[in-house]
């Protein structure tokens, strides 16, 4: 923890916030892309330190939130199959499908397990050869290397009872989609530090140039976030639109090339539906054809499952930054963490849940 305390120092935080207040001259809307950043901003009250000119918009960077309802329903269908174990990260258990969530399937006798790594699911498949083990592989670029390794490992061992239900999503296409969307208010982005630790920063200069938008790679601790915001505001005030790395202790330009190689071998780009936003071209990964045997969507016939979103849920507008969570008519009424209508109210990284839990009614 001693390496975290130095990024949480209150005096330095106040100095950075004051510096932002000194350089800002007019209103700017800055989107933090990653749900982990949203969580930290709300948890630490960072937005409360900022001058009124700086507005933070909470982006679509919570993988739980943007996973389409269909994928959840498919996971639920798999979990209901006898002889099957569905493994998932903890957050996903409470995400509502069309009719129920994984907790409900578990209570009805489905075998649903929380794992901390997809490799634990591979281990489970190895130890239970007479059961089908399916890992719900969602997430951004950050979780992709471990998920890719799970498929690779299963293939190396010749496991026939392991598969992945993949719904991976990618940051750069999402930034492009937000910049192209009508009514976009975003002036600059804090790019997700941990995504960049895997992918590097080389993908971003063309995006910054095309949309003339500053992109600052930013970490997750209070001082990381304030420094990212400070650099973003400095660029905006100087009419610059560059890619800057404000998280150099973790991120470099090239990223983790070994991880990128595994990802390129196991996954292939695909048009992906984002919950509340819609289909974004080439914005996700699915398993490459060489790994088709480990693709749960191909292994189990799930094609017929489609789903309708709640008409009350405005999470799409929240994810695009055109609506604050507490401006949604259903917020805190029909939609609470106990009765979430959309995924942004489920995950602690979701903007709606973060607002609700911090008492921002």
């Amino acid at each position, binding site marked *: *923890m001693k390496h*975290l305390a130095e990024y*949480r120092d*209150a005096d330095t*935080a*106040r100095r950075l916030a004051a510096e932002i207040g000194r350089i800002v001259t007019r209103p700017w809307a800055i989107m933090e892309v990653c749900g*982990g950043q949203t*969580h930290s901003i*709300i*948890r*630490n*009250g*960072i*937005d*409360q*330190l900022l001058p009124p000119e700086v507005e933070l918009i909470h982006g679509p960077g919570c*993988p*739980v939130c943007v996973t389409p309802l269909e994928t959840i329903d498919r996971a639920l269908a798999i979990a209901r199959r006898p002889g099957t174990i569905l493994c998932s*990260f*903890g*957050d*996903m*258990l*409470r995400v509502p499908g069309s009719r129920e969530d994984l907790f409900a399937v578990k209570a009805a006798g489905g075998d649903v397990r*929380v794992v*901390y790594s997809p490799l*634990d699911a591979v281990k489970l498949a190895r130890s239970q050869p007479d059961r089908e083990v399916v890992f719900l592989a*969602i*997430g*951004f670029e*950050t*979780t992709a290397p471990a998920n890719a390794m799970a498929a690779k490992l299963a293939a190396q061992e010749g496991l026939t009872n392991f598969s992945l239900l993949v719904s991976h999503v990618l940051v750069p296409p999402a930034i492009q989609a937000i910049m192209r969307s009508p009514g976009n208010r975003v002036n600059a982005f804090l790019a997700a530090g*941990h995504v960049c630790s895997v992918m590097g920063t080389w993908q971003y200069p063309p995006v910054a140039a095309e949309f003339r938008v500053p992109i600052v790679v930013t970490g997750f601790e*209070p001082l990381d976030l304030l420094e990212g915001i400070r650099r973003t505001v400095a660029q905006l005030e100087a009419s610059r639109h560059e890619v800057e790395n404000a998280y150099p202790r973790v991120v470099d330009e090239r990223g983790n090339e070994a991880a990128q190689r595994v990802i390129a071998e196991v996954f292939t780009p695909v048009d992906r539906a984002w919950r509340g936003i819609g289909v974004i071209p080439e914005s996700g990964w699915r398993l490459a054809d060489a790994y088709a045997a480990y693709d749960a969507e191909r292994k189990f016939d799930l094609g017929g499952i489609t789903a309708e979103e709640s008409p009350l849920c405005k999470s799409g507008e929240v994810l695009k930054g055109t609506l604050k969570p507490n401006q949604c008519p259903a917020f805190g009424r029909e939609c609470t*963490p*106990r009765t979430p209508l959309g995924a942004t109210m489920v*995950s*602690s*990284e979701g903007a709606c849940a973060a607002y*609700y*839990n*911090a*008492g921002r009614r």
Partner: protein
Amino acid sequence: MADQPFPPDFSQFTCPAPLRDRPQIVLGHGGGGALSQDLIEHVFLPAFGNPVLDRLGDSSVLDLAPHLAGGGRLAFSTDSYVVRPLVFPGGSIGDLAVHGTVNDLAMSGARPLYLSAGFILEEGLPIADLVGIVARMAAAARAAGVAIVTGDTKVVERGHGDGVYINTAGIGVVPPGIDLGPKQVVPGDAILVSGTLGDHGMAIMSVREGLEFEAAITSDTAPLHGLVAAMLEACPAIRLLRDPTRGGVATSLNEIAALADVGIEIDEAAIPVSPLVASACEILGLDPLQVANEGKLLAVVPAAAAGDVLAAMQAHEHGRAATPLGRVVAHHPGRVALRTTLGGSRVIPLPLGEQLPRIC
């Protein structure tokens, strides 16, 4: 109980009696016949034995008059224990079954006197495991100065239980003049906590999920009535005590705010968390305020007495790391607010239920 080895070493264990030559619990052990008697004679009585229990009546008869003389009042509580694994770093289900009920009584200011113990055993449980758990339970009861005076055993079919479930009920006596409760809480009161938060929950989670940290996180399971007695001696006008078990401090503080209809404000910088638990929570995306404790208490005390109570806590073995946590306020009744280290604030919500590790 941190000095006990983990996992426990049963290699030297020899069964004290033939137990009809069965090394495992069978359905007959709950049938009330000879096998049941075997368990009582060879497992429970040797561990728990005391003059009241040894009479083996259908109920135990307790003479409470001396304890209640002078205006003492009876406190009565029950709790069930379903922890998995049964033995964990720092304790076992046996320790919890004693400490949990003892602490529930202590939170009313009561001195715990008697416990009941109901066991639900799963067919196939190694009797050696049961003996180990019962031994720890007996040691915990002895250390806490309570007698286990009545009990029951049932056996369920294999697959219908997690080895052992234990229910304990307890009786204690609240001394005259002590009246703890939410209606006593008023704005201006200080909130104290008896030590680091989240140790029990993270100890269980790290074992259950096979998470390996640099060193084992140890459960804080402990009886708190001695600490409570010392605190009440320093200030009989303590307003309210809570042991923040499941749901952690976040749940207890929300309950206090709701029941007393007051606001509560705590300081992020004041939250005591051990470096190991802090790291584990950071890795798993959990909030130490929501993680269970089994040997900690929260105290709401008159501000003027806070220094004396804190000193009394720090002088007691189970309160050495006691520290002020926050205060009761008149605004935002029913809500718990946290002042962040950076000077912002946020509401601490009532946790929903199970803690779910975040994805990234």
